[in-house]
Every structure is written in structure tokens, then in C-alpha cells.
């Protein structure tokens, strides 16, 4: 379907979901039908699986929050200060926990936090109503979720797998072409943007894939295949830049031997061919795999270690690319058997975490608790009747945008949304509603507004704006079974919402103003810790290590502008280098088992020195490392030729290139193979 008709069907489904929810809510005489109304808008997504997953998460979160309010309010309602402290603390705690999980699942905890605030603060003056309010909130949200989920699964649903597969195909094709081009050129400054794009795309795919578990039943579930595929795609830039770096180093020392440059040309052609095979049939890839192995054949005659390392990385690069093709085909239809080693890896793969940022989570939690407390203080000390609403919106305003780099921008957009939606709401409440005498006329009156908002929500550009407007509009209408228009309370409630959001804005500015450069340093530091852990750990799990590292790469690069290059160099920020080092370390560990015990000990001392460098960037460690690298390379060249020796030497050579480039004499030493 074309994007335009997609948007239309989405808007149609969404409008019917809203009207259906309103109709049922009025028919059952529920207390606040508008809660059901904006729930539909909140969980509406152009992808059916995303609607259903968000619905489930919203349900769980609301239930948890309502239960918490139900538990706290009767206990603490006599001591308002204590109640405010506990609820604010709970909001902060939930936000902290939710920010530790970057998948859509985090919504559960965030919602549990501010739902408790919504329910508790709206019943403090009549605590006996807490059960009824909690149940009402649950009922309306259930209703909204069920209506949205049914409507978006039945009316021309778009499933998550289609768009995921399309994006993966595109990512592989782009990577393949880019590898083919880049192998023939020296590294360019613009490469960093390409890596950033790929890293971002992989993180997005990771998040998007969580919806597949909730997709309509015809979509195959293949989480493990997806994990291995992500790993393959994430090592592409690692191998590619390794090759580039080694080539550069080789060219500054001596001319490249014609055999190596011939193999590089072959590799470039193969990459382009892998990129253009749309449906990777097993046979065509098998033929390719022989050609890939040809590239890695031991170079005959006296060759430098660097040239050997280049060919071995070319093989890894092409293998990863070819396997990502096979895996992406398997993602669509997991039934045909994968090659046996891939199948084994897929069935052993474990869940991969993304980068977790405790610092930001803690600061956001502080901002949420503080803004909630400030609103409560105003509420109590000014005896302000609508203060509870302000406290609710302070909690919501700090929670929802907490994952962003500059959350206060979104809060200000929310204020603007409320102010903009207000006149429309007022128009409906005071001019249209008095003339309405039943559901049919209400539906007709609301239809244009609902359809317009849904249509806006479908487009990528206006999606966020539309959501803010839709929620603000539903809140301003505050549809209730009996018509009660009171201009004073209309204005009061909306003012309190705006004040609550402004408090949230102030607190977010106070707690969450962090320069992007400093953030990049913080994230990189965590990456260094991961590398040193990998180096000092006896049995590393390099597969699950690479996704968070690659995620960090995207996060760091997106925070650095082109002008920050010198700063990044000075602060040792180079996430791609960290990835390469980690990858070479893992290769070393795998090669270790094939070697003699004394050589194993030498390799271990190399790892220990790398760990030391990554713990504290100190020149003395660099000297120690280069000495141990020299010793290890010397020791390995005396080993009899074997696969372990070759991969070990390649990894050591590349490590030397990354971390101790000052000693070139060894690199040009010839290996008489």
C-alpha cells in the first residue's frame, strides 16, 4: 500500500477505536470516558505489534501504579507531608528503574510511577473514593487499550516484521556497497557518520524487534536469529576499519604486494555481489564462501605480518556480510535449516543488553521527585485546590521525556500543546456540547477533530505534536456522562496542568542539563571499562559484548559534532577503536587453546596489559604493552604453522597497530611461512 493510503487507514482505524471506546464507556456509565479516549491516542502506532505491546505494558504499569496508590493512600492520608514524600519518592524510584531498560518495556515502570501519583493526588480530599478511582482508571485504560488493539489489528494492520525486514535488507545492501567502495579508497572523515547511522539503525532494529513478540500470529518469532544478525552487522565496521588501518600502516612502510591488492579487489567485488543477491539462495552463497576462503589463503613467500592480518580480516569481513544475508533470509522464514555452525550459534545465543546509564537515570529520578515535591509544597502551603493536578503533571512531565538528551524541550512543547488545544477544547465544551443530546450527535461533532488528529499522528513529521495535541484536547474536553460546563473549573484545571509542567521544566533544567561532549566522555568511559573487563575476564563472551559496545558507538558519535574531533582525540574517545581492541582480544582468547602453555601465558600478559591501559590511560602501560606484544609476536612466530597461530598473530599485529603504534620494527619483520 502507498504511504498515503496507509496513513488514511491508520486514521480510520484510530478514529473508530476512539469512538468505540467512548461509546462503550458511555454505555457502561463509566466515570471518566476521556481517560479511555486518550489511552487510544497514546498507544496508537502505525505498526500493529507496537500498539499491542504498548497496550500490554500500559496495562501492567497502570495496574501496578493503581495498586500502589491503593496501598499508600489509606495508610498515609492523615499525614499529607508523608504521603507527598512517599508518592514523590515512588515516582522517582520507578523512573530510575524504567530508565535502566531502554526497550519499550521500560514503559511499565514509568507508568507505575506516575499512575500512583495521578490516582493518589486526585483522591486525597476524599480518601474513601480511592478504590473507586483506582478501579475507574483501570477500567477506562483497559477499555482504551482493547479498542485500540482490536481496531489496529483488524483494519489493514502493518506488521513490525515487514518494516524490520525492509530495513535490514537496506542496511545490508548499503553496508555491502559501502564496503566495496571503501576497500578501494583511503579512510575519509565522512565515514564516522556512516558508522553512526549503522549503529543507530541497529539499536532501532533491536528496539523494534521487541514488538514482534506481540505481533499478529502470522509473523515468525525469531529473536535468536535477530540477535546473531545484529552481531554480524555490528562487526562489519570493526573489520572494515581494521583493514583500512592496516592498509594505511602498510603503505607508509613499504609498497603493498600485488597479491594483496589483487585480493582486496576480489573482496570488493564479492562484497558488491553479496549486496546485490536479493534472495540469498544457499547454493550461490556456498559458491561465494569458497571464493572468500581463497582470499584468506596463507600468502606465499616472505610477507609481512600486516599483510597476513589484512587478508585474515578481509575474510572475517566478507564472512560476516555473507552470513548476515543468510540470517536475514532466515528471519523471514526460519524453517529452512541454517548452515550447521550458524544454527548452533543461533540456538546458543543469549539476550543482549543495550548500554545502561545509571547516572542519567539517577538524575532523572531526582528531577521527578523534586518537581513532584515542589508542586506538593505549593499545593499544601497555598491551600491551592487544584495543586494536586499540578503535582500529577509535574510527575508526568518529568517521566515521559526522560529518555531524551534534552527533555525540557519536550515539556515546553507539551505546555504549548495544552495552550493550543485549549481554544478547541473550549469551543467544544461551551459551544458544541450544550447542543448535543446523544452519542450519535457527539460522535458526529467529534469526528473531524479525531480524524484530523489521527491523520497527523500517522505522519512521521507531526506524530509527536499530534500526540501532545490529542492528549491535551482529550483532557480539555474531559468528557463525562453528564454535561457539566463550568468555566472557572475548566480554566483552573488547565492552569494547574501548565504550572505542573513548568515546574517539571525547571527541575529538568536544573538536574538534566548535560553538555553533549561531557556525555560522550561519560559513555566512552563505560566502554573502556567494558574493554578492560573483557581483557581481564578469563572466558569472555564477545558476542554479547559487541551489541552494547556498538550501541555506545552510536550514542557517542551522535553527541560529537565534526568540530569536536580534536577534543575527542585528546580525551581518547574513539569507540570504534575500543571495539576493534575488544574484538582482537576475543580472537586472541579463542586462538589461545591451540597454543603451547608457555605461549598461552605470554598472551595472557598481553591481555593484562591491555586491561591496564583501559583502566587508566597511562604511557607507562603503553610501554609495558608494547614490550609484551613484541614478546608474544616473537613467541608465536616460532610455533609450527596452524590456524591458531595465524589468527593469534593477526590479532596481535592489529592490537599493536591500535595501542602501541610506536614500534614499527616488528611489523616489517618477515615471516617465512
Amino acid at each position: 500500500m502507498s504511504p498515503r493510503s496507509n496513513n488514511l487507514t491508520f486514521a480510520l482505524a484510530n478514529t473508530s477505536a476512539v469512538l468505540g471506546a467512548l461509546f462503550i464507556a458511555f454505555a457502561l456509565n463509566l466515570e471518566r470516558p476521556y481517560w479511555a479516549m486518550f489511552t487510544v491516542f497514546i498507544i496508537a502506532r502505525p505498526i500493529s505489534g507496537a500498539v499491542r505491546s504498548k497496550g500490554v505494558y500500559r496495562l501492567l504499569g497502570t495496574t501496578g501504579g493503581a495498586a500502589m496508590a491503593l496501598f499508600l493512600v489509606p495508610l498515609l492520608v492523615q499525614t499529607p507531608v508523608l504521603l507527598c514524600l512517599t508518592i514523590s519518592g515512588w515516582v522517582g524510584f520507578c523512573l530510575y528503574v524504567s530508565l535502566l531498560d531502554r526497550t519499550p518495556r521500560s514503559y511499565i515502570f514509568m507508568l507505575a510511577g506516575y499512575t500512583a501519583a495521578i490516582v493518589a493526588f486526585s483522591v486525597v480530599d476524599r480518601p474513601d473514593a480511592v478504590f473507586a478511582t483506582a478501579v475507574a482508571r483501570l477500567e477506562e485504560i483497559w477499555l482504551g487499550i482493547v479498542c485500540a488493539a482490536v481496531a489496529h489489528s483488524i483494519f489493514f494492520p502493518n506488521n513490525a516484521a515487514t518494516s524490520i525486514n525492509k530495513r535490514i535488507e537496506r542496511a545490508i545492501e548499503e553496508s555491502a556497497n559501502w564496503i566495496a567502495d571503501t576497500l578501494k579508497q583511503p579512510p575519509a572523515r565522512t565515514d564516522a557518520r556512516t558508522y553512526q547511522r549503522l549503529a543507530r539503525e541497529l539499536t532501532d532494529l533491536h528496539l523494534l524487534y521487541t514488538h514482534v513478540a506481540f505481533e499478529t500470529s502470522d509473523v515468525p518469532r525469531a529473536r535468536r536469529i535477530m540477535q546473531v544478525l545484529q552481531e554480524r552487522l555490528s562487526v562489519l565496521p570493526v573489520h572494515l576499519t581494521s583493514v583500512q588501518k592496516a592498509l594505511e600502516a602498510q603503505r607508509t612502510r613499504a609498497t603493498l604486494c600485488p597479491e594483496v591488492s589483487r585480493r582486496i579487489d576480489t573482496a570488493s567485488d564479492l562484497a558488491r555481489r553479496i549486496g546485490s543477491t536479493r534472495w540469498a539462495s544457499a547454493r550461490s552463497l556456498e559458491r561465494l564462501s569458497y571464493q572468500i576462503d581463497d582470499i584468506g589463503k596463507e600468502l606465499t613467500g616472505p610477507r609481512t605480518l600486516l599483510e597476513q592480518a589484512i587478508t585474515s580480516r578481509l575474510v572475517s569481513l566478507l564472512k560476516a556480510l555473507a552470513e548476515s544475508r543468510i540470517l536475514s533470509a532466515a528471519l523471514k522464514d526460519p524453517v529452512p535449516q541454517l548452515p550447521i555452525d550458524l544454527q548452533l550459534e543461533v540456538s546458543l545465543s543469549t539476550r543482549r543488553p543495550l548500554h545502561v546509564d545509571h547516572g542519567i537515570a539517577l538524575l532523572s529520578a531526582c528531577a521527578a521527585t523534586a518537581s513532584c515535591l515542589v508542586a506538593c509544597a505549593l499545593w499544601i502551603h497555598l491551600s491551592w485546590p487544584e495543586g494536586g493536578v499540578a503535582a500529577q503533571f509535574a510527575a508526568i512531565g518529568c517521566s515521559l521525556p526522560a529518555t531524551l538528551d534534552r527533555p525540557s524541550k519536550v515539556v515546553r512543547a507539551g505546555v504549548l500543546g495544552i495552550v493550543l488545544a485549549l481554544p478547541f477544547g473550549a469551543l467544544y465544551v461551551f459551544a458544541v456540547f450544550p447542543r448535543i443530546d446523544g452519542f450519535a450527535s457527539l460522535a458526529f461533532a467529534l469526528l473531524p477533530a479525531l480524524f484530523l488528529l489521527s491523520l497527523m499522528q500517522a505522519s512521521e513529521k507531526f506524530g509527536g505534536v499530534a500526540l501532545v495535541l490529542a492528549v491535551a484536547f482529550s483532557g480539555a474536553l474531559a468528557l463525562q456522562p453528564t454535561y457539566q460546563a463550568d468555566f472557572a473549573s475548566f480554566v483552573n484545571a488547565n492552569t494547574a496542568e501548565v504550572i505542573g509542567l513548568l515546574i517539571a521544566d525547571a527541575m529538568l533544567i536544573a538536574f538534566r542539563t548535560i553538555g553533549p561532549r561531557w556525555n560522550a566522555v561519560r559513555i566512552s568511559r563505560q566502554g573502556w571499562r567494558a574493554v578492560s573487563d573483557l581483557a581481564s575476564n578469563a572466558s569472555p563472551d564477545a558476542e554479547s559484548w559487541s551489541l552494547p559496545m556498538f550501541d555506545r558507538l552510536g550514542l557517542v558519535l551522535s553527541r560529537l559534532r565534526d568540530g569536536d574531533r580534536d577534543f575527542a582525540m585528546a580525551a581518547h574517545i574513539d569507540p570504534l577503536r575500543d571495539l576493534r581492541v575488544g574484538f582482537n582480544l576475543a580472537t586472541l582468547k579463542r586462538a589461545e587453546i591451540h597454543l603451547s602453555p608457555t605461549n598461552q601465558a605470554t598472551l595472557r600478559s598481553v591481555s593484562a596489559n591491555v586491561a591496564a591501559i583501559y583502566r587508566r590511560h597511562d604511557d607507562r602501560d603503553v610501554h609495558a604493552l608494547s614490550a609484551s606484544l613484541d614478546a608474544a609476536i616473537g613467541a608465536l612466530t616460532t610455533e609450527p604453522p596452524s590456524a591458531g597461530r595465524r589468527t593469534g598473530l593477526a590479532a596481535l599485529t592489529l592490537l599493536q597497530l591500535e595501542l602501541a603504534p610506536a614500534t614499527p620494527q616488528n611489523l616489517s619483520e618477515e615471516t617465512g611461512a
Partner: protein
Amino acid sequence: MTGEFAIDGVFVPRVLIEFALAFGVSLLLRRMLRWFRLYRFVWHAGLFDTAVFVVLAWTIAKVGAGIAS
């Protein structure tokens, strides 16, 4: 048809229980159908799942009413 179950003093409508049961059964059924790759023969999985749920809920309600009477 209409009635309520009292669970620890909270009255829960019978329809809710029936729906919850039907939903659980439909989850199992969908998993089985997916396991046998029968969704290849289904044109519109969302619609099909909804229809299966309705049929299951109706059956459970009928059977429940039969047992109660």
C-alpha cells in the same frame, strides 16, 4: 447469562472471567497454530485471531451456563 463472582469480597463480573479464560485458551491455540505453520493458510491473521477469540468466548460462556444450570 449475567452474574458475578465474589472473590474475597470483590464482585467480579462473570463476563470478565469468561473473557480472561477465552484469552488464555486463544493464546495457547495461536501458539500451536504457529508451531504447525498453519498461518500460511490464513489471509488476515489479525481478523482471524479476533474471530477465534469471539468463538472461544462464546463457547466458554455457553458451556459455563450449561454447567451452572
